[in-house]
């Protein structure tokens, strides 16, 4: 691997990211999959970095899942997206920041479509006005939430309590980075680092002391997609995709996986459990799996947030090996305690995957 070669490509794929005043659009599924992540994003931006973020309760799905499953036509999707832009406009914001990768990809695709085919923009304005009497401006700046964390990665590093380093050996943690397909595979110039060697997550890992692994199946799909998971008959395909990636990354002995898509961390996490039950395979050391995190969770760990506040107890692959390697101070007994110390109950023990 020639790192200078990658750096040259990264230079070719930079993008403008707004400094402040963000209109935040949550994801449909992230709050169920990894409930601490979006709260952590807001905590980092507002409390740590002092930014102005508007978390609007009035926006809806972008229709991304339905759009990519051919259920909702593009015209409808455009109108829904236009409504979000109208909400942003009426709230007095110009910088749109979606939490979901598919939303980000869809907003990008729609803005590009409006640019290439102005008649579709006019039609959308008309549709939205007829349906809601709303009018909208296209955002000045559209960035994914991982772009924002990337932008402020060095500020986060300055406030860091922990590094992505094995405290005992002093070695950087070996980290697999995986971007969501809709981040830059459709529009390489809209993603930091492009599509082939994306830098958005690798940059965070670099800043926070870890080292990135480039393994042969790095570009392969995580197995989520929508069609492959939404239809049960296709799920075998979904898990096979994930397995292909695990088999390919395992020889590098990764300490963790970092992701920026709603689906990828979920499938990397849950399918490791399913694979361990179906075939008895575990991909980490001593019966552990390879913990899969969102970038907000990793940022939260680096900033010294309580792992249980980050929602790491909801991972099926236990996060404890990583916490121990980083030397994070945490209380194991609090893992299954909710707010006000209410007992959340424990999940059933897995047959092969190590349980804490």
């Amino acid at each position, binding site marked *: 691997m020639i790192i200078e070669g990658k750096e040259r490509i990264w230079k070719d794929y930079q993008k403008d990211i707004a400094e402040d005043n963000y209109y935040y659009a949550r994801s449909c599924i992230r709050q169920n999959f990894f409930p601490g992540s979006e709260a952590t994003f807001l905590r980092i931006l507002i409390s740590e970095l002092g930014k102005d973020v508007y978390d609007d309760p009035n926006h809806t799905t972008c229709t991304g899942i339905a759009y*990519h499953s*051919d259920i909702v036509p593009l015209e409808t999707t455009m109108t829904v997206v236009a409504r979000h832009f109208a909400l942003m406009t009426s709230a007095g914001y110009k910088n749109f920041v979606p939490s979901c990768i598919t939303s980000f990809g869809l907003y990008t695709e729609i803005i590009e479509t409006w640019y290439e085919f102005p008649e579709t923009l006019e039609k959308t304005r008309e549709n939205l006005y007829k349906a809601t009497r709303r009018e909208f401006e296209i955002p000045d700046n559209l960035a994914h939430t991982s772009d924002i964390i990337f932008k402020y990665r060095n500020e986060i590093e300055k406030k860091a309590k922990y590094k992505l380093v094995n405290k005992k050996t002093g070695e950087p943690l070996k980290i697999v980075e995986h971007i969501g*397909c809709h981040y830059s*595979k*459709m529009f390489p110039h809209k993603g930091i680092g492009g*599509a082939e060697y994306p830098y958005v997550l690798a940059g965070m890992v670099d800043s926070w002391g870890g080292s990135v692994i480039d393994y042969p199946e790095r570009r*392969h*799909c995580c197995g989520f*997609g929508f*069609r*492959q998971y939404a239809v049960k008959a*296709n799920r*075998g*395909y979904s898990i*096979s*995709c994930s397995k*292909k990636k695990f088999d390919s990354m395992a020889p590098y002995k990764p300490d963790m996986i970092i992701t920026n898509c709603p689906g990828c961390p979920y499938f990397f996490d849950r399918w490791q459990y399913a694979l361990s039950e179906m075939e008895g395979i575990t991909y980490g050391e001593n019966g552990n799996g390879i913990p899969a995190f969102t970038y907000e969770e990793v940022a939260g760990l680096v900033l010294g947030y309580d792992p249980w506040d980050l929602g790491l107890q909801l991972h099926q692959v236990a996060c404890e090996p990583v916490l121990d390697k980083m030397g994070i101070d945490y209380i194991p007994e609090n893992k299954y305690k909710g707010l006000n110390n209410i007992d959340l109950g424990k999940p059933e023990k897995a047959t092969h995957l190590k349980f804490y």
Partner: protein
Amino acid sequence: MKNFGYTIQNDRQIDYDKNDTKLYDFVAESEKSIRTCIFCGTCSATCTASKFTDLSLRRIILYLKRGLNESLKKEIESCMLCGKCNLACPRGVNTRNVILNIKRGIEHYEL
């Protein structure tokens, strides 16, 4: 019917004169770029679904051109429409739209 202990073999030959190209014509009408396919296989090499299912867009386009619509009907169901092939095609074929139009055509002609 008498059984003499042997069978009359089905003819495997592609009979080009009986080539039913209506599905191909349907697709080519709305997505002209399909005509420029040179069957290099970049689409099928980059295809995520082809690794686990019997899916090859290159072969589907060939079947389409030969009017072997029956053979491609099941195969195309494996496509997840991720669009990766669109990024890779050296001839600039709009592969995603090709697939969507094949599906539309199958419905249109009730194949």
